[in-house]
């Protein structure tokens, strides 16, 4: 009989600067991944316009050993720079996300509907007990009430976001927070040797 060595657990007692998370990923965890593309793309277009950000690796690293029941990216249909967003949406589709486009809900083309769509999808999965864990890739604090409701349904909620975009309220509410800033997700190409400015 092999007994699991519990020594690594005690390592975490010494790590006081990062929050302790008792929830360890297991292969049997059914995970729903929801990507708020509007939230993430704003940061990507502003700070990493010429970088090759790999959404496929983001999805793979986010899910890890767990069982992915669905990976859904929610985005709007109206943008100032449609070409760039069309390319992004194509990239998202090929990275394994199901793309859910929400039409503009008012005359100015504002996309308040995307947050509602994400909330409805997450809540439906939780109520119908189709997932054990919801992974929200967004930093929008508007999702804090959703996180609390998902907790009430017995669903773990993990948040991934850029540090600059992460709402303090969402950070405090989520069970686990991962910063995208610290994840190796930008593909380095050899032919960029002379030009790249990492």
């Amino acid at each position: 009989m092999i007994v699991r060595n519990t020594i690594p657990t005690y390592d975490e007692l010494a790590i006081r600067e990062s929050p302790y998370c008792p929830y360890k990923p297991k292969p049997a965890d059914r995970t729903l991944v929801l990507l708020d593309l509007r939230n993430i793309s704003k940061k990507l277009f502003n700070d990493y316009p010429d970088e090759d950000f790999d959404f496929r690796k983001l999805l793979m690293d986010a899910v890890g050993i767990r069982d992915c029941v669905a990976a859904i990216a929610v985005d709007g249909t109206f943008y100032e720079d449609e070409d760039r967003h069309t390319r992004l949406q194509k990239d998202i589709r090929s990275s394994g996300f199901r793309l859910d486009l929400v039409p503009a809900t008012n005359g100015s083309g504002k996309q308040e509907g995307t947050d509602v769509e994400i909330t409805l999808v997450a809540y439906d999965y939780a109520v119908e007990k189709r997932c054990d864990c919801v992974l929200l890739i967004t930093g929008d604090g508007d999702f804090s009430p959703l996180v609390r409701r998902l907790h009430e349904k017995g669903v773990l909620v993990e948040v991934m976001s850029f540090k600059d975009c992460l709402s303090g309220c969402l950070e405090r509410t989520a069970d686990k927070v991962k910063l995208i800033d610290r994840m190796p997700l930008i593909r380095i190409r050899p032919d960029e040797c002379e030009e790249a400015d990492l």
Partner: protein
Amino acid sequence: MITHEKEGTFTVRFDRMADGRIAGRIEGEDTPVYVHKDSLPASLGETWTCRLFENSGPGGVNYFAILLDRLEDEAAEEPKDEQAVEEFTINEDIDVDDYDPVLADGRKMKWRKIFRYMGEDTLYSDLLDDKPFIAYSSPDRKLIQLIPCDWGDMFCNDGMIRIAGLDSLANREKGLLIPYSTDKGTFILHFR
């Protein structure tokens, strides 16, 4: 399927990658030794005393190790590395023993100083095999992940690999020792 435990404890040096996993061998035997999933984790270049469980399956016989104690053997870890870069100024300012950063998911990583910056966007390590890699950097420019991959676009020759933009990460200091960790057969390098 684990069939039985090999009697006694054994010293195993984990010094290579096999099938995307860290592997080692015990002295006098060619049978590969892998770390059991329920054991303490091992990094490349480490030597441990272990209990071994023989495993026989369609792929042949191998051992799964339950790690007990890590043996400190710094001198044996870097002989090739030191020899290969002796012409460069070696920056020994980094004391990685006091520098074990915490990843975003709370895991504390053990960094080892076996990767070395050689200037001109080039890294050297005797851990790098001559094969293609895929490279990723983190948005905050502090991590680089090297993933061995048959269809990768970054090629390693004689333990040297050129990575675009590395100069800006490594502060252009030749001989800089770069802490690294392993994750699922990949190398994660940490730059300050």
